[in-house]
């Protein structure tokens, strides 16, 4: 398959995914009862309900509503009005995106800067106490729910030691604990993956050749092993970035970080459905876009993947 055909296929799949999400969101709201009564508070009068139905176009036939909803969301990024803020839901979400992006990128940097070196160190010194320590740490990092890790960090680093702030995003110091919490799982999986990818590679023939022609261990690892071990690691890096953007909900809640995940949970409690819907659709869109970029980059790096 040529690269352009491969890219086209991935784009079509991404669009299909988005279409599915928009459709599910549309019908979920319609099937659960009258959206007008869901959107209004219990004290709303029959007149209010009628006015809102008119305003939302709910008195039109379902296919028409579906088409309107679809074109608004996909073409105009118009998710309706926030019920709490008297502002478009899309704008409410947009002002929270920089905070989530900062947190996700900081966590992503930690994942790479800590996880990959830890995995390399563990592989190079395999079966030593260092390796066992790193792998035990990685296992714990993978089984600890990130909201629990966050709470332990708030308790120990924030409340007992009083080293770092634990709430909000006022200064750069506020970023440290949430980024650490969010990246723990990624660091752990990246370290385990790098270690096993490198151990797979060091047994290959070209590594024996590298040693045979007299390269030092360091040169053989850095020039030959790392490059070949990088292929699975790069793929998972992309997946991790998506997870960080979509999975920051609990971390944002623990550290009162003003991002989109916290906005979504708060909006559920405030019954601000348009905002929840805007968050779900925004995150879905970002996630699909990242997956697409990763797929395309990977198909370009490694032509074998285009045929699977």
């Amino acid at each position, binding site marked *: 398959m040529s690269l352009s055909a491969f890219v086209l296929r991935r784009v079509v*799949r*991404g669009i*299909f*995914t988005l279409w*599915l*999400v928009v459709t599910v*969101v549309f019908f*979920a*709201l319609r099937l*659960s009862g009258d959206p007008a009564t*869901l959107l209004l508070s219990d004290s709303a009068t029959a007149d209010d309900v009628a006015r809102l139905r008119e305003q939302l176009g709910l008195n039109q036939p379902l296919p028409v509503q579906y088409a309107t909803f679809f074109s608004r969301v996909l073409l105009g990024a118009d998710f309706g009005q926030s019920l709490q803020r008297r502002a478009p839901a899309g704008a409410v979400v947009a002002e929270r995106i920089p905070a989530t992006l900062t947190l996700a990128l900081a966590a992503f940097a930690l994942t790479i800067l800590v996880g990959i070196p830890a995995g390399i160190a563990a592989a190079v010194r395999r079966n030593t106490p260092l390796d066992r320590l790193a792998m035990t740490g990685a*296992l*714990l990092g*993978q*089984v*600890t*729910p990130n*909201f*629990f890790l966050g*709470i*332990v960090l*708030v*308790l120990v680093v924030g*409340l007992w030691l009083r080293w770092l702030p634990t709430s909000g995003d006022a200064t750069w110091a506020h970023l440290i604990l949430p980024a650490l919490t969010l990246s723990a799982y990624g660091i752990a999986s990246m370290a385990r993956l790098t270690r096993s990818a490198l151990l797979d590679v060091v*047994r290959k023939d070209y590594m024996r050749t590298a040693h045979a022609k007299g390269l030092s261990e360091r040169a053989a690892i850095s020039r030959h092993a790392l490059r070949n071990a990088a292929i699975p690691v790069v793929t998972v890096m992309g997946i991790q970035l*998506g*997870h960080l*953007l*979509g*999975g920051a*909900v*609990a971390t944002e*809640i*623990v550290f009162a970080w003003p991002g989109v995940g916290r906005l*979504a*949970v708060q*909006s*559920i*409690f405030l019954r601000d*459905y348009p905002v*929840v*819907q805007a*968050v*779900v659709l925004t*995150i*879905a869109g970002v*996630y*699909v876009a990242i*997956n697409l970029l990763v797929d395309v980059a990977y198909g370009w790096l490694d032509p074998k993947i285009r045929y699977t």
Partner: protein
Amino acid sequence: MAADRVAVDRLAADTPVARGEPVPVTRRPHATEQPAPSLEQVAQLVARRRRTLRIPGVAWASAALLLAIVLAAIFAPALAPQSPYEQSLLDRLTPPAWQPGGTWARPLGADDLGRDVLSRLLYGSRISLLVGFSAALIGMVLGTSLGLLAGYLGGVVGDTIMLLADAQLALPFLVLAIGAIAVVGPSLGLLIVLAGISGWTSYARVTRGMVLSLSEQEFVVAARAVGASTTRLLVRHIAPNLVATVVVLATLQLASVILLESTLSFLGLGVQPPDPSWGSMLGAGREYLNTAWWISVFPGLALMVTILAVSLGGDWLRDALDPTLAHERL
């Protein structure tokens, strides 16, 4: 025969063992990368297989832990010193027994409403396991049957099923769950359904792949040739071969389902007060972190230990029963 003998000897002479070198231990050798195995190598492989089948300490430990958790859940009413719901304002925020001000009547302390933390922890294991097991079961039944259909029928039905699976995998499930809860409102039933739906994709993908390769095998072709119906083929000939794989997947899924339940409950979107769940206890204790760390730390530890036991057990089961699943680790 003589020629064979020579060939085997020549191969055998070339192994690290014959050369007196230490044997590199590969955990999962790839058959395609190796030349025809010598007798020594076969013997080594058999020995290695025996070694993996001998149950290691880690697997025993995780099985023992899991058994303890299941027993705690079953016998919670007998083990719990108090009712998990009984409030006692005089005992608010009592610290654990070994701390100053603690009492053995409340071994792990009391929460902000004076409820016994240990009792709530014990009853909370029921929620985690109830949601975990029923959701894993829903995901297993849904995913395996859709995977069977997709693999055996193929065509439009198969493509649609796999497209749905790909679409779901292309999204963060927690965000979808939040969207659903926003519409329907939080409840235990919705929690179980959502957690069940979260896992079906892995089963469907693995089952479909296995069905595709099994349908080519002679015993299936033979059964079809003697006139077995599609249902009979699927139920009697193909499904039994999937059992080990599906059991391994279910164990691996259990950990992620328990994590999803506790995350949603922590956010206040899952199990609702006053019902005890480890996630919701953690969430409720957050406000008292400065004065009463025990309200949130003990449920967190319980959750961590449970997930650790389930994942270690699942990893071991996978290595022992079906090493081909290595990449399905979530």
